[in-house]
């Protein structure tokens, strides 16, 4: 059975004054019998650019759609900026959402989209919207149906951002973009979110994207949260140890093995030591973010492969 790792809640202390942008308790979403999100506990502090990574089908979209109230949880609770997602128009105004594949109205012009934003959002910032449209090279008279994928993503992001939300949610915004457009989009996004002064959640199945722009990471796999935390904290809490084989069980308490890889007579072990690593007689190296994420994803896929047999039995019953 996969073991749910309760994410370390380091953000909690720093942001005791402002509520978490997202707080989930036992959050579960099933489509029929297929679980999309299982028993997730997650707290994301404010003021971050949060990256949500995981393989396709891990539950990223589900989590984000739950967060903006497009779908309702099967069980558990989810609070976004302190209240139920999409509970009131006032709450809707505080959350901006760019859905996967960035839907826009094909028959509307770019200007129509801005006008829609202005009419439907009391907090709309027309100057910001116009500035951004000009910045990314869109013309107000263009029909949205004729825009390229990158332009459409920019338009959707502009509409979501110009209502000046406190939280901006982006579901795979760069997925449809070619590498060049993706580069531009993500580079632009970071500055833009900083300018807005908002928190942002960004999902991607590409770690590269997330590593470039995010300062807080949530790793999702097999419908469960594997690990979550601020990037520097995560890097500080994880280490690579080169331990002799057969001596792994001598690891001190408080050190959790995430993944072990055999190399000659040694084992390369990715460990987490949340409270700092106690003295260890073996060589210790820092880890890169990519390695850390891969460690968790590998562990998740191995444990779900091991758990496949019983779960198949469950379905048959």
């Amino acid at each position, binding site marked *: 059975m996969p073991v749910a790792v309760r994410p370390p809640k380091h953000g909690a202390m720093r942001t005791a004054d402002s509520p978490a942008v997202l707080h989930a308790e036992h959050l579960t979403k099933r489509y029929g019998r297929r679980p999309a999100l299982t028993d997730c506990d997650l707290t994301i502090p404010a003021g971050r650019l949060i990256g949500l990574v995981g393989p396709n089908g891990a539950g990223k979209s589900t989590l984000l*759609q739950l967060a*903006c109230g*497009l*779908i*309702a949880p099967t069980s558990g609770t989810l609070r976004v900026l302190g209240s139920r997602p*999409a509970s*009131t*128009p*006032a709450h*809707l*105004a505080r*959350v*901006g*959402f760019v*859905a996967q*594949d960035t*839907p*826009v*109205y*094909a*028959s*509307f012009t770019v200007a*129509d989209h801005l*006008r*829609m*934003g202005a*009419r*439907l*959002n*009391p*907090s709309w910032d027309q100057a910001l919207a116009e500035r951004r449209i000009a910045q990314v090279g869109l013309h107000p008279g263009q029909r949205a149906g004729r825009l390229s994928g990158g332009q459409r993503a920019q338009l*959707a992001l502009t*509409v*979501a951002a110009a*209502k000046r939300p406190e939280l901006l949610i982006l579901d795979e915004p760069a997925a449809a973009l070619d590498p060049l457009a993706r580069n531009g989009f993500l580079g632009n996004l970071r500055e833009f979110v900083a300018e807005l002064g908002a928190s942002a959640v960004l999902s991607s199945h590409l770690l590269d994207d997330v590593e470039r722009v995010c300062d807080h990471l949530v790793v999702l796999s097999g419908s469960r949260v594997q690990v979550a935390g601020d990037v520097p904290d995560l890097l500080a809490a994880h280490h690579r140890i080169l331990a002799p084989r057969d001596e792994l069980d001598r690891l001190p308490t408080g050190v959790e093995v995430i993944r072990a890889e055999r190399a000659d007579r040694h084992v390369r072990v990715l460990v987490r030591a949340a409270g700092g690593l106690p003295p260890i007689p073996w060589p210790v190296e820092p880890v890169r973010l990519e390695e850390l994420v891969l460690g968790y994803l590998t562990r998740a896929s191995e444990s779900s492969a091991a758990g496949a047999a019983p779960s198949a039995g469950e379905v048959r019953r």
Partner: protein
Amino acid sequence: MIWMSWRQFRTQAIVGVGALAVLAAYLLQLGMRIRDSRDSYLGRCQPQGDCAQAMSQFVGEHQNTLLILAGLFGLLPGILGMFWGAPLVARELDAGTHRLVWNQSVSRRRWLLTRLLFVGLAGAAMTGLVSLLLTWAASPVDAVADDRFSTVVFGARNIAPIGYALFAVTVGTVVGLLVRRTLPAMALTILVFGVVQFGMPNLVRPYLMTPVDVTRPMTAEAINEARGLGSISSAAVVRGLTVPDAWVTRTSELRTTDGRALDADRFDDCLMRPPKTGATGTFGDAARCLGELDLHVDLSYQPNHRYWPFQWLESVIYLALSALLTVFGLWRIQRRVS
């Protein structure tokens, strides 16, 4: 939200107004032509003082055209339901744009209610205008023909069509919300609307007000006024009995003095092998033979003076159905979702 409703409805509205203009021009021209025709009939018969025959010729000349128009007009609300109602939500779900618009600072319920009211009222206005013009154009014929309660004509005059249009658009919207894809929603909309429009005049309308019951003795003369005798099931029935200034909603089988249905064999005897007496009339000897059996039928009818109460009742029913569907849609859109 009003701007948004208008912007999304613009193309359909332009098509609708275009069609309306053509239709209105035709109906105005038709109305003038019918009036001219009535005047020329009256001009020819008035010197002789008896215009009954001329008037029935006048009705005969225009009745078919008006009946076809009424039939086509009966489709209009269904078409509005298909092309205006069904795509209202379904197209958003199809294109995924609901994920854009439902995340603006407008609650989903307000979004749905505003758009539904906008399109529903546009549909009601369009249907109302066509109904007004058709009612006006046909009024010289209707005044003489005395068939305002007939199934097709009733639903194509005055205010009843407005209720149909509101209902059809609401059905389309709610079906679209449930089915979530535009084309199936359109097909299902016209189907549901068609079933309701069939059921209403046949199963509901006759009972909207308690009908008046009357027993009519079936003398040979009375039988000769009927349109037909007997049926495929060889039951003892007369068809097409009328009551002046009324809509006959039910005609019983031929009954004997003890109130029981006439025996099918005796009926057949009279129909197939009546004694030859040389009687005249539509059914000749058969009518005479039946007339001698001292039969009667029980009729139920709605007098014509109930026409306006019926128009209002039917409108209120469709309005209430639309309101119920709207409430369901508002409840549904809040819980369901992608």
